[in-house]
C-alpha cells in the first residue's frame, strides 16, 4: 500500500470522466482531495455522495462534474447549495445530470456495491414522485410474502476517497465517531484513497475500531486538516461559522469564482489553502 502525495494520488486515481465518491457523512469529508481535483482541472466526473455538501458545491461550480448521484443537496442547517442550484436551474457552468435517491436508497446502493450484489432492496420510494423521476428505481416481489419492494442498482465508483483520523504504515485505516456510509462506499469502489490526519506505526488496539484493512486501500495520503471545514473527531471541530459564511460566498458566481481563485487555485496544497483562510480572517 503506497503512501502518496495528494497530487500524485489524484493524478493516478481520478482521471477525467471517472465516477468518484468522496464520502464522509458531515464528519471527515475529504475537502483537501476535492480541492486537489479542482486544481488539477478534472472534467466530466460523475460525482457520488449522499450529501454533496460544500465540497461538491465547489467542484460543480468549478466545472468538474458531468453527473451527480446524491440524496440530500443542501448546506446543513444553513440553506441552499447555490452552485449546485445554479447548475441544475441554469446549467452554469455546465448542465448536471442528476441521479437522485433517498438516503436509505443510496445507502442500499452502496451496500449492494460493497457486497458484490447487482441491486439493493428496501421498503421505500413507493408512492413518491422520486421513483418516477429516477428510472434506476425499480422493484422486486418478495418470493415469500408477495410484497413489492423497491430496488436500487448497485453503485460501484471507479474510486472512493475518504478522510480518516489514522492509518498505520501498513495502510490499515481507523475512524472514530460518525462513520456514515464510508465503509460501504469504500468497499464498493474499484480503488480506495484515504487522506488521514496522522500515520502511526501500529493502530492500537487493532480489531473492531479499524474501518478498512490495508489490502483494500489503494493509497494513503498524510493530510492533516484535510477535512476542514468538516471535522475530525478528536482533532478539530466542525467549522460551523464557515458553513454559514459559505452561503454569502457562493450565492453569486463572481464572489464564488473570486474566492476559489484566491484560496484554492492560488494555493499549492491544503496547508497553504488553510493559511490563506487564516490570513483572510
Amino acid at each position, binding site marked *: 500500500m503506497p503512501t502518496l502525495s495528494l497530487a500524485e494520488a489524484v493524478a493516478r486515481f481520478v482521471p477525467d470522466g471517472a465516477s468518484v465518491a468522496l464520502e464522509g457523512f458531515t464528519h471527515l469529508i475529504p475537502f483537501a482531495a476535492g480541492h486537489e481535483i479542482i486544481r488539477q482541472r478534472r472534467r466530466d466526473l460523475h460525482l457520488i455522495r449522499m450529501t454533496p455538501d460544500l465540497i461538491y458545491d465547489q467542484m460543480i461550480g468549478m466545472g468538474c462534474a458531468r453527473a451527480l448521484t446524491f440524496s440530500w443537496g443542501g448546506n446543513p442547517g444553513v440553506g441552499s447549495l447555490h452552485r449546485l442550484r445554479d447548475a441544475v436551474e441554469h446549467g452554469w457552468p455546465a448542465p448536471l445530470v442528476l441521479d437522485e435517491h433517498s438516503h436509505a436508497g443510496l*445507502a442500499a446502493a452502496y451496500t449492494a456495491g460493497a457486497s458484490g450484489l447487482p441491486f439493493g432492496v428496501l421498503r421505500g420510494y413507493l408512492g413518491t414522485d*422520486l421513483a418516477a*423521476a429516477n428510472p434506476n428505481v425499480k422493484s422486486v416481489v418478495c418470493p415469500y410474502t408477495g410484497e413489492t419492494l423497491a430496488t436500487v442498482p448497485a453503485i460501484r465508483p471507479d474510486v472512493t476517497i475518504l478522510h480518516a483520523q489514522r492509518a498505520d504504515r501498513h495502510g490499515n485505516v481507523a475512524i472514530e465517531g*460518525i*462513520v456514515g456510509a464510508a465503509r460501504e462506499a469504500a468497499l464498493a469502489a474499484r480503488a480506495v484513497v484515504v487522506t488521514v490526519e496522522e500515520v502511526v506505526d501500529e493502530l492500537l488496539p487493532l480489531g473492531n475500531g479499524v474501518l478498512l484493512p490495508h489490502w483494500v486501500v489503494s493509497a494513503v495520503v498524510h493530510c492533516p486538516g484535510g477535512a476542514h471545514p468538516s*471535522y475530525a473527531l478528536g482533532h478539530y471541530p466542525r467549522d460551523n461559522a464557515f458553513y454559514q459564511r459559505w452561503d454569502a460566498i457562493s450565492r453569486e458566481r463572481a464572489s464564488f469564482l473570486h474566492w476559489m481563485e484566491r484560496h484554492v487555485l492560488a494555493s499549492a496544497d491544503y496547508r497553504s489553502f488553510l493559511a490563506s483562510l487564516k490570513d483572510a480572517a
Partner: protein
Amino acid sequence: MNGVTRDERMTIAAARLLWDRAVCFVGIGLPSAACNLARLTHAPEIVLIYESGTIGAKPHVLPLSIGDGELAETAACVVPLPEVFNFYLQAGRVDVGFLGAAQIDRFGDLNSTVIGDYAHPSIRLPGSGGAPEIAAHAKQTFVVMKATPRSFVEQLDFRTSVCRPRAVITDFGILTPAPESDELTLTALYPDATVEEARAAVGWPLAVASEVDVVPQPTERELATLRDLHARTEAAHRRPVELPI
C-alpha cells in the same frame, strides 16, 4: 409572557407532543430544538436518533448539522448510516419522526425536492434525504413548518414523501387529520392567533374544527429552557474555530 415568538410557540408545542422514553428520529432545525427541549424538561429519557448514526444523543448545544461532533460525543452508540435506516428506522424501532418541507398538501404529503418541473425546476430544493422512509416507517410523524399560501398548497409540485402526519405544528397553531376524511383540520390556535390568520396562511380552503382549542401558554420553565438552549447554541456556532494548521 410577552415577547414569545411564534418560533418559540411552535417549538414548545412540538416538544409537548413527545413523551418520556419515546424513540425519535430527529431532523435538523426546529424538530431538533423541540426534541431536546422535551429531553431537558418532561422527557429526560427520550431517545434521539439522528440519521448520521448517532443514537441516544444528548447534545449540550443544538447541532448545526445532522452530524456535529457534539452528537457523536454524547451518543449512546454510533452506528453506520445503513444500519440506522435498516436496523432502526425500516425495522420499525422508531416511535416518532419529525419532518419539515417546502410544500405540504391538505392530507400531509410533502415536497422537499423542486418548485416547478423536476427536469427544469424554478427552484431546486435539497431533496429527500431521509424523509420518505421516515414518513413511511416511523410509527407516527409530526410535521413542523411555517404556513404561507406557497408552502401549504392545493397541489404539490413534487411528492417527495407520502406522509399522513398525526399533527402539523405551524406558526398559527396545530392541524390534525379529521377522523373520516383525513383532511388536515385546524384544531388548535396559539393564544395570539386567529382563525382568519390561519385561513389566510393556507393555500387551500382550510377546514376548521367545530371546537378549536387554545394551545396553553409556554410555562416559565419551557421558555427559559428553550431560550438558554438557543443562547448556548448561537454562541457555540458563532465561536470561530481554530484552523487546523
